[in-house]
């Protein structure tokens, strides 16, 4: 018979305001098996934990029940306290009388009654608890970074600098991501390429970093410390080991009409191309949809001119399998499509552009060599109107409900740079609110408005229409309370950003949760902001929520710290609550192996004694406790009831149900 101690927590007023904690502790004293029952203001505090430890020792307790908050919050705390007092940590059960009781009820009598039931239920279970021991699993000392933008680059460099191997898997032909497309960066206006490309080179030269560009993650198996990942290396039709990046193929390629994605489609590129001058790896790639040779079989000019024989039109996608201890997701963002915002005339007017397109138009390496010109006629625009919150903070359903966070700052940057470089240009900015918190951020915006004479107009734009080549921007000026129309030469839309769509597939592969806006969910919004709820998976950059470069870099370094903390361990404690089969009851049907998401179940041929000296060889289940995550899918699937879960046995669960039904 267990000697059970019960500890009821007030959680300040969180529980005590709705549940009569003293009454619960008093009522429970009468339960068979309970030899000690106490209540305390903050059971998780040092004093509270001491109270538990003392009681375990003084009353020779063999099991304890803590009536407190969710086990997700403090189960580990109380297990640790019990262990310190000499108890097996799995002899602790939590009755959740906060989230499941006090927080959701108003009536004190009802809530108290329910709290008693919940504690009784936990007692019923703990009576059947048995001491459990955690196993150990080795840690593969290599990290995978998915996405090679600034987030992935920073995380990879930090992890590699600590001495661990890192692979960067980047779906595009080069690393660099969105930051490589930017002209200047706020609030200090350094040139984006000047601060990014050295880091790209560092990645390429780092002996611990392997860049798998033009590659995608296809399959992920395993668990923290032991992920098995299948990576698709997409055919680039150019041998990466041979290409020297001389670009002669780009010059000679006769098919030059492909839209240049890197320049946001503002100009064209050949069918064989290197995305931009500082690309890493500096290796060409062929667009098979555009390549004449690959479409018609005739051409092959690039192959003729390539001095090193790197062109291979027959290349196929290849798959490689690698093992990792930890995974960083850094898949980044894209501007939203503007199909739902015809009122801004983006589709109908070449001179209505997005902010990212403007970055390319202002970039010295962009389609206009850094000279700001109108896409329609190549003339210098004299009046430029910016529209903020295009698709951000949108409750109509056409855009995104969230604030994209970066637009106020980059619009101030654009406006300032234009006024600086072309002082004869009139610049207007329509805004809902200007949101510029951050070190030196508000000062930056005020400089745009006050020193650079940018005309900030509070109000939204209703429509943009073209009259004889002039873009008429009709909007409201809420401060002057009037409707205004600004005759503009160029209109720039501060387009909302959204997670790169491929993140959905990656989230599914990693069983990492994702919110309604496709942002990956962090484990705790405040206290575990870079960890995914899936152990061993970490989040960096916009895939987790809108953020600018400084924040992205901070988060990436934080991820790296977490990954390093994991990879320095030689072994990880595994979950003690694993599936355990009764071989005598197993009929070898394999249904459990089919439902196991972690590949923890295999079958073995085993010899059994039948009595009378006879033996029989049967095919029976075998669980790898290092791989089992204790999800319980196999236990409910097994038709013969041969599978049980340690710590959550069918008997324990049935006794809990009985305890509730006794009411």
């Amino acid at each position: 018979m267990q000697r059970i101690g019960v500890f009821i927590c007030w959680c300040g007023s969180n529980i005590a305001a709705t549940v009569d904690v003293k009454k619960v502790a008093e009522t429970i004293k009468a339960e068979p098996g309970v030899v000690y029952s106490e209540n305390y203001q903050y059971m998780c505090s040092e004093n509270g934990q001491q109270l538990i430890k003392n009681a375990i020792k003084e009353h020779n307790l063999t099991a304890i029940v803590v009536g407190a908050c969710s086990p997700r919050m403090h189960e580990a705390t109380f297990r640790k306290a019990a262990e310190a007092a000499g108890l097996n940590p799995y002899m602790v059960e939590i009755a959740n009388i906060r989230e499941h009781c006090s927080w959701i009820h108003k009536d004190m009598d009802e809530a108290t009654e329910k709290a008693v039931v919940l504690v009784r239920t936990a007692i019923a279970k703990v009576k059947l608890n048995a001491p459990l021991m955690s196993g150990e699993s080795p840690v593969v000392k290599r990290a995978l970074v998915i996405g090679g933008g600034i987030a992935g680059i920073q995380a990879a460099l930090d992890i590699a600098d600590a001495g661990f191997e890192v692979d960067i898997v980047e779906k595009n032909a080069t690393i660099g991501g969105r930051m490589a497309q930017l002209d200047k960066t706020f609030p200090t206006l350094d040139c984006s390429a000047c601060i990014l490309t050295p880091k790209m080179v560092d990645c390429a030269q780092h002996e611990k970093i392997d860049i798998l560009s033009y590659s995608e993650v296809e399959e992920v198996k395993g668990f923290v410390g032991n992920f098995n990942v299948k990576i698709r290396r997409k055919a680039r039709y150019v041998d990466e080991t041979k290409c020297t990046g001389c670009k002669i193929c780009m010059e000679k390629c006769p098919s030059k009409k492909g839209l240049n994605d890197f320049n946001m489609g503002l100009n064209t590129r050949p069918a064989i191309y290197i995305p931009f001058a500082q690309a890493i790896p500096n290796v060409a790639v062929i667009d098979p949809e555009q390549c004449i040779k690959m479409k018609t079989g005739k051409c092959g000019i690039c192959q003729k001119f390539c001095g090193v024989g790197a062109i291979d039109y027959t290349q196929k996608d290849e798959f490689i399998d690698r093992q990792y201890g930890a995974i960083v997701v850094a898949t980044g963002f894209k501007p939203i499509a503007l199909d739902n915002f015809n009122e801004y005339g983006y589709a109908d007017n070449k001179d209505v552009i997005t902010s990212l397109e403007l970055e390319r138009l202002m970039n010295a390496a962009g389609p206009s060599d850094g000279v700001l010109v109108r896409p329609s006629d190549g003339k210098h625009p004299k009046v430029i109107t910016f529209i903020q919150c295009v698709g951000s903070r949108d409750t109509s359903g056409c855009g995104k409900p969230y604030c994209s966070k970066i637009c106020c700052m980059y619009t101030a940057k654009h406006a300032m740079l234009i006024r600086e470089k072309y002082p004869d240009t009139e610049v207007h900015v329509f805004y809902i609110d200007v949101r510029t918190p951050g070190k030196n951020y508000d000062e930056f915006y005020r400089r745009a408005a006050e020193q650079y004479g940018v005309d900030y107009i509070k109000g939204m734009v209703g429509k943009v229409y073209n009259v004889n080549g002039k873009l008429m921007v009709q909007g409201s000026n809420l401060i002057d309370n009037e409707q205004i129309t600004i005759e503009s030469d160029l209109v720039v839309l501060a387009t909302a950003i959204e997670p790169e769509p491929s993140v959905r597939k990656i989230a599914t592969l990693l069983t990492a949760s994702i919110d309604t806006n496709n942002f990956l969910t962090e484990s705790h919004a405040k206290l575990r902001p870079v960890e995914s709820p899936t152990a061993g998976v970490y989040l960096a950059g916009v895939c987790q929520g809108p953020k600018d470069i400084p924040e992205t870099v901070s988060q990436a370094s934080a991820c790296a710290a977490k990954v390093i903390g994991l990879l320095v361990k030689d072994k990880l404690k595994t979950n003690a609550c694993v599936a355990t089969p009764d071989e005598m009851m197993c009929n070898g049907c394999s249904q459990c192996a089919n439902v196991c998401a972690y590949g923890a179940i295999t079958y073995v041929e085993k010899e059994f004694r039948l009595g009378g000296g006879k033996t029989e060889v049967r095919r029976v289940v075998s669980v790898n406790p290092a791989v089992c995550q204790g999800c319980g899918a196999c236990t409910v699937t097994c038709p013969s009831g041969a599978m049980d879960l340690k710590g959550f046995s069918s008997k324990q669960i049935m006794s809990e149900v009985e305890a509730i039904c006794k009411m």
Partner: protein
Amino acid sequence: MKICYYPGCTLKTKAKELDRTARLAAAALGVEMEEIENWQCCGAVYPMGTDEIATKLSAVRALDYAKHNGGKLLTLCSACHNVIKRTNEDMKSNADIAFRANNYLKLEETYAGETEVIHYLEMLKNEVGFDNIKKAVVNPLNRKIGAYYGCLLLRPSGIMAFDNPENPTIIEDFIRALGGTPVVYPFRNECCGAYVSLKNSELPKKKSEKILASAKEKGAEEVITACPLCLYNLQVNGGDILPVKYFTELLAEALGVKA
């Protein structure tokens, strides 16, 4: 298909052509529009005052009649549609208005917004189907037509749920079904000037001319609308830039029943 129909006052006076052609076209499409008994003025703009209850009663009466006669109420005039649909929403979601209106009306059964209010265009799109209309067309329009939405069908968009208020497409789809070429122009959802024309025609003149000039500039040969007041402003204050017709006139023409 039979459906309760609420014409409204304007359709019996200034906008007879809207009513007449709508009925002819509906008959040709196999829709029986049953004018509800003893309908009264929808209340025009007045039911939008939240503290006034009497002006909402006639709309609720019509809605309650439809509730017991098929559950749907067909409207045609944009203003009536706006007033009735918004009053219906109040009966559904504003407990105070619903309570007071029901107290006044002393209906056999409390009215709580059960009726579905549908505009003639929605009936064409969802009940008849533009594909079926396309099949029924005998005189394809073969000309460039600008759709003029005005405000009342689209806003407030949450309640009207008619179409995207910034980028509507339903009338363009309608024009396409009739064999015409829709002309999309930026001012198709701008206000015509509305009732301001009673006091001062300068403002509606400015607005209406801008709308028609914009449609003409994009190549429209004529403009269609569902609203009698919009039609008035565009015709009287629009500077004769383009001919303006009711959408039902074109429908009847395309179906060969205009006479």
